[in-house]
């Protein structure tokens, strides 16, 4: 299992692996928003929590189809399925590898990007906390969607359509956590609800993803 995680991380970092793609996309969104809506702090500050969360979510979506598709195409998924490790574990480890290469860098870079959008200083801690607790759900739900669409050629569109509605609760609670933090309200309620979604996703979706893979490998 550790070997699988290390392999996936190594593949992501090597040329063409897609590491940095999510960060670059996040950067582009955050840099372009002030050009679109105007640079004044009065406009940017209220929308900053929502834009930051939306950017992180879309950046996460960008690399989802690679989770299983590359392994499916070169045949390694079949070998993984016959290896002495449970397929549920493989789904969980692949989601973890996706999170380490996208969600984690996004979380760490978010405070810097918050500056671009004039995020009020009370929001930074909550931004990092909400992304740290919310992005694992994005990777896990995404891994499930990727498992469902793995055998479809260019299934990226269907994957996006399947996964985006499932991302909505995480987005609502995540952005609301930051907004409440900025406005000085108590942000722990949405944060706890979002953490519950993350834990639920991590507990249930490896099984759903493994079942989807088994059907798709037939």
């Amino acid at each position, binding site marked *: 299992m*550790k*070997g*699988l995680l290390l*392999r996936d991380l*190594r*593949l992501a970092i*090597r*040329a*063409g*692996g897609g590491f940095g793609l999510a960060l670059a996309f996040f950067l582009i969104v955050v840099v372009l928003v002030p050009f679109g809506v105007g640079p004044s702090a009065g406009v940017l500050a209220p929308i900053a929590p929502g834009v930051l969360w939306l950017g992180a979510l879309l950046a996460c979506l960008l690399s989802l189809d690679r989770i299983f598709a590359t392994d499916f*195409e*070169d*045949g*390694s998924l*079949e*070998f*993984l*399925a*016959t*290896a*002495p*490790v449970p397929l549920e574990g493989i789904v969980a480890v692949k989601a973890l590898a996706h999170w380490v290469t996208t969600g984690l860098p996004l979380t760490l870079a978010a405070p810097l990007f918050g500056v671009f959008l004039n995020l009020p200083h009370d929001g930074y801690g909550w931004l990092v906390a909400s992304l740290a607790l919310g992005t694992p759900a994005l990777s896990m739900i995404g891994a499930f969607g990727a498992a469902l669409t793995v055998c479809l050629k260019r299934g990226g569109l269907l994957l996006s359509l399947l996964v985006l509605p499932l991302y909505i609760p995480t987005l609502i609670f995540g952005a609301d956590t930051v907004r409440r933090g900025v406005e000085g309200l108590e942000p722990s309620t949405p944060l706890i609800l979002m953490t519950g979604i993350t834990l639920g996703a991590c507990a249930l979706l490896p099984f759903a993803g493994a079942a989807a893979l088994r059907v798709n*490998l*037939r």
Partner: protein
Amino acid sequence: MPLRMDDALLTVSELACARGGLTVLEGVSFEVYPGAVLVLRGPNGSGKTTLLRTLAGLQPAVSGSVVGAEEAVAYAGHADGLKGTLSVAENLSFWAALFGVHGIAPALQAFDLEELADRPAQALSAGQKRRLGLARMLVTGRPIWLLDEPTVSLDANSVGLFGAAVRRHLGGGGAAVIATHIDLGIDADVMDLGSFRATAPQGGVFDEAFE
């Protein structure tokens, strides 16, 4: 060299397998003993790949049973499962670690890959990739090899290396089921899948629903 009935590594009885919802094989029964090779023959589309995938547990059997395959088979299909950006040694080490086998040196040596060990897999020729794909079987430590057209794109010398690897595997008490059309220079039982072609009319489930 069949020994006794209870020594069979793999027992398949009255197996029927389907591809794309159509039953292509039925009534397949055979046993594989330690040290024995079963060669599957048959024209394209006769169900060789389907049978091997069913034995590997990648797809469920329509009916019948497979005993002994669980956690005992290593499957190699048409694709080699290589990552182009990883080196030959890294590719092999990953599978060795996953199957809990230590040391990839014997596998590299068996398929003459030692000099290529640090080369990225994407820089290999088709035959070299195939050799690496087959070397993976040696790091699984599994007793039953299921090989689907293993000699595609191999030259005569590499086929010889492959034959030698299979013979060593058999000598160590292993067994193999190989779908191939060429002579590997190994004493093998040959099974022609043409005689197991499914004849039952399709759509039975649909008809039953209205009876």
